[in-house]
Every structure is written in C-alpha cells, then in structure tokens.
C-alpha cells in the first residue's frame, strides 16, 4: 500500500482518511486476533478432550465412583491402581511382545525388499520397467484391508493361520516403500557410486556401503509410517489370530473394551487405552518433525 499511495501525494484526502482510520483498524485487528485465538483454543480443547479424559480417568481412584467418571477435572489423588489392574487383567505384557514381533518382523523384511526394488527402479534400465512400476503402484489402490477375505484363504493354505508370520506376511512387499526408496535414490548424486564402480565394487557393495547410508532419511521416514500402521492395525490380525496367546495390543484392547460394560471398569479401560497409545505418542512427541514429514509423504499410501 505504501508504494502506491504516495503517488497521490502524502497530503491527499485519501491519505488523511487513512491516517485517521489507522488506529481504529489496528485496534479492530487486535480484537479479531484475540477472538480468533480464543476460538482456536476452545476448538483445541474440544479436540484434546478425549485424551484429557483418558489421562484424568486412568489416574482416578476407583473410590471416586462412576457418577463423576466423566469429569475432566483431576480433583483426586492420582493412583496407579488402574494401570496395575489393566496389566493384570489383560495380559498386556504378552500383547506388547506380540505387537513388537509383528512390527519389527514387517519392518525388517520390508527394509530389504523396498531397498532392492527401489534401487532397481531408480538406477537400472531394463525392459518392462514402467509396466512393472505401475504393477507395483497397483498395491496403493488395492490396499490390504480390501483383500482380507482371499488373503485369509491364502494364509490358511500356507499353514500360517493363527500364527504371527501369518499376520506379517501380506506386508512383506510395499509399493509405498518401493516408491519412497526410488524417490530417495533418484535424489542422490551419482558421483559416489560411479567412483565406487570404477574401483570395481559390485552392485551389492554399492547399495550397502554407498547408497543406503545416504538414503537413511528415506528409510527412517518409511520406518515411521510402517511402524505406526502396523502398531495400530486391527482388522487383519483379528481375522488371522484365534488363540489368546497370539493376540496383539489392538485385539486385546478391543476385547477389553467390549468387556467393560460395567461402570466401575472405566478407569481400567482408560489405563489400557493409554498403555496401547503410549509408545507411539512418546515417540511422536520426541520426533515430531520427522513424524509429520513422513506422514505428509505417506499420503501416497492412502
């Protein structure tokens, strides 16, 4: 504005009007931003209230009774009794171990498959490359949950029903991971690998010693998305697992929720929910930036 107005002369009628207006405008602006901030705080409070309730309820002693169970106000001496009850009644320890096996098992195999495939698509030229790439991308649309019925038959045929490998196996190949690693490799300069190739390094040495160390940010982004997805997964393990010994955290929590019809158990349920959410929540708060970046990229995964 300042660049345009002086043309009319600093003493023009418009300028005089502006000068008279400015304090009012500024005040109005300040008022608006205060209203906006208050409104935003209210919405944020509303958004956070389910979590605030979980926190309050999980530390509330059982003696507080069920009438005030919904109160968000922590008007009590906090107790760990609910967590103790949840850990005792739900065999959460076992669920943690099973979930860890699933998450680590999926990730370990995926890291190998997506690195190899990503390297092939990024650096090698071969007939049918584009067709194969699109064949990979098809998995972004035919997401595993849509195929639970035939995949369950396959898992039964492979004698993997009611085993953790049966839960893990459908995720060994990842179109999203392949795509992400391909993009990561494409962004790396070729100088280093060319130097290594001239020194006579075989392809696997180039991938392992030259490319992968530089592609670490891509792998970490993929790991965050993969771990989050499989830590949170429910429907597929629910279909594959039948015996209590093989259940994961989400299955345990769901059973726990459906069992908690009585009013007294809400504190324990809140504690159980918190136990399931806690590891990812802590990791997120510690590495917020990385999480957010990974999730923005993961949009292609859907």
């Amino acid at each position: 504005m300042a660049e345009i107005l002086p043309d009319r002369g600093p003493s023009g009628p418009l300028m005089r009007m502006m000068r008279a207006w400015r304090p009012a405008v500024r005040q109005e602006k300040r008022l608006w931003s205060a209203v906006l901030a208050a409104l935003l705080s209210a919405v944020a409070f509303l958004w956070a209230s389910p979590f605030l309730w979980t926190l309050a309820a999980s530390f509330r002693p059982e003696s507080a009774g069920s009438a005030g169970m919904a109160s968000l106000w922590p008007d009590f001496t906090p107790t760990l009794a609910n967590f103790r009850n949840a850990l005792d009644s739900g065999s959460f320890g076992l669920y943690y171990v099973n979930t860890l096996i699933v998450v680590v098992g999926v990730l370990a195999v995926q890291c190998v498959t997506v690195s190899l495939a990503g390297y092939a698509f990024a650096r090698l030229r071969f007939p049918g490359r584009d067709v194969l790439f699109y064949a990979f991308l098809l998995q972004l649309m035919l997401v595993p949950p849509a195929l639970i019925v035939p995949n369950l038959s396959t898992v039964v045929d492979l004698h993997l029903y009611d085993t953790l490998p049966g839960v893990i196996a459908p995720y060994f190949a990842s179109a999203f991971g392949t795509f992400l690693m391909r993009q990561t490799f494409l962004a790396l300069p070729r100088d280093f690998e060319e130097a290594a190739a001239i020194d006579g390094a075989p392809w696997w040495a180039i991938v392992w010693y030259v490319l992968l160390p530089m592609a670490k940010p891509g792998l970490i982004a993929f790991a965050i998305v993969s771990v989050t997805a499989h830590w949170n997964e429910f429907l597929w393990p629910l279909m594959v697992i039948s015996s209590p010994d093989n259940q994961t955290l989400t299955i345990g929590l769901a059973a726990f929720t459906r069992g908690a019809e009585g009013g007294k158990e809400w504190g324990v349920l809140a504690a159980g929910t918190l136990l399931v959410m806690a590891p990812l929540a802590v990791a997120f708060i510690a590495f917020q930036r990385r999480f957010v970046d990974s999730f923005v990229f993961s949009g292609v995964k859907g």
Partner: protein
Amino acid sequence: MSLAGTTGVLDGIQAAAVPVRRRRLRLLPFALLAPSLLFLVLFTYLPVARVLVESLYDKPHGTGAAASFVGLGNYAKVLADPAFRQAALNNLVYAVGVLVPTLVLALAFALAVQRSTRFSAVLRTVFFFPSLVPLVAAASLFFFIFLPRVGLLDYYLAKIGLHGPNWLGDSDVALWSVIGLTVWKNAGYYMLFYIAGLQNVPRDTVEAAMIDGANAWQRLRFVILPALAPTTAFVVVIALIQLLTNVDHVIVLTRGGPSNATNLLLYYIFQSAHENFEYGKAAAATLMSVAVLLAISLGSLRIMERGARGNG
C-alpha cells in the same frame, strides 16, 4: 597420460568378461524385484483372481461338500441382500458425511496454524494427534464418550441443560456418531497436506489480491482455494480409500448395529466371511468393493499425480 594405458589394459580384461557379466547384469533388475514381486503376486494380484473365481462358486461351510458353480448367483444374492444394500447406502452417507466436514476442518486448521509460532505448534500437535492413535483406541475412548447418561458427552450436555440421544443405540443417530468419531480422527491428518499445500500458494498472487482490495474471504475463495485444488483432489482420493477400508471402530463400537444402521461395506464383508462363513457372498462383495476402489483411484490418477507433485 598413464590413465590411457590403464584403460587400455582394463578394456582388454573387460572385453573377455563381457558376455557373462552382461547376461548376469541383464538378470539383476529382475532378481532385485523378485522378493517384492513374489509377495505382491501372493497377496495382491492372486487374491483378486481368487475372489473372482470364488465369487462364482458356492461352498457350504462345514459340510465338507464340494463347491458348486453358481455363476453370478452370489452377486445376485449379495445385491438382493437388504443388509448389503443398507451397507452400501450407509457407506455412501458415511463417506460424504465424513468427507465434507473433514475437508473444511482440515483447511481451517491449516490456515489457523500455518504461522510458525509456539501457539500454532501446540495447536498443530493437538489437531494431528488423533490420527496417530489406533482406530481401536479411538473407538475405546468414544465408547465412553457416547455412554448414555454418565459418558463424557451426556455429562457435559447435562451441565448446560441439554439431553442427548442414545448416541450409539438409536438407529437414526448411530451412523452420525460414528461419522463424528471419524471426523475427529482424520481431520488433523489431512490438515498436514493443506499445510504443505499452503506453502506452495504463490505469495505474490495473495499480496496482489490484497492490494486490489480483496478481503480475507475473497482471497480464500478466489486465490487460495483454486491454488489448493490439486491438494484437495489428492486428499479426497486418499480419504475415500480410507473411508472404504477402515471399519475397526464399527467392529468395536456397534458391530454394524443397531439394525444395520452402521453397517459399512467392509464390515459386511468381514461379517459374511468371519462370522457367517458365507465365502461366496464375501468374495462377490469383495470384488465389488475392489472395483469401486479401482474406479476411484484410476479415475483420479491424473489428479493424484498432480496432487502428489504439488505436495512435493
């Protein structure tokens, strides 16, 4: 220089080794892709072929009888099933009912928190956090929130003198309660894409509009929204895929009830296969939902590519 000499020697060695090495190098890409392809075939391509075949047969569960070919019989059965029709209709209402408010909220959140202040950072975390927790955990929380009389919602509604309906027990309300949960869970995730998209809106254009006297609403409507179109298209696609393939909350909260009011397509498939053991019906319904997924994705592939580029 000496380099030329070395190259000459190397060429000699390489010339002898070329045929073997070249053949091996020609196979290398396929060897690298093999592990991925094996599992893609096993758990993505073959399953589609498998449901295609299984949907044409009727295999009674537990009787040990051989499967009999029924042609399109399963499709006819599914399409005539009132529960399936209800699930398809519910899924449509659910998709639109979630999509519209989540998009509006996601954009509003993004606009509100895009400045890099401490306050914005806290808000961003609060809004995004629900999309990080398992859908099952969100369902557990909302199980209590929706609890009649003593639950979080009714407790605070009573304080301001209001009386809520039976959130999950009333068949007119239940689907909207599930929609509310999903909006809460997803809006923060899509907010991330709008934050990224907003960074690509050219500043000059916004400033030019400002100088031309466009107010905040006009700037949003005529400058920012058009610039965000690829982001919106992209978010719509991933949201639709999510809304067709996430039913964890339905399983935990309502089991499709009351009287099928919250039955969604994938829940119908899950129920047919896992609880009623009607594989033919489940296969037919799966194939139909796969067709819908492919239609959504392929129909918007071009937009999606543009959107993906827009998001970096």
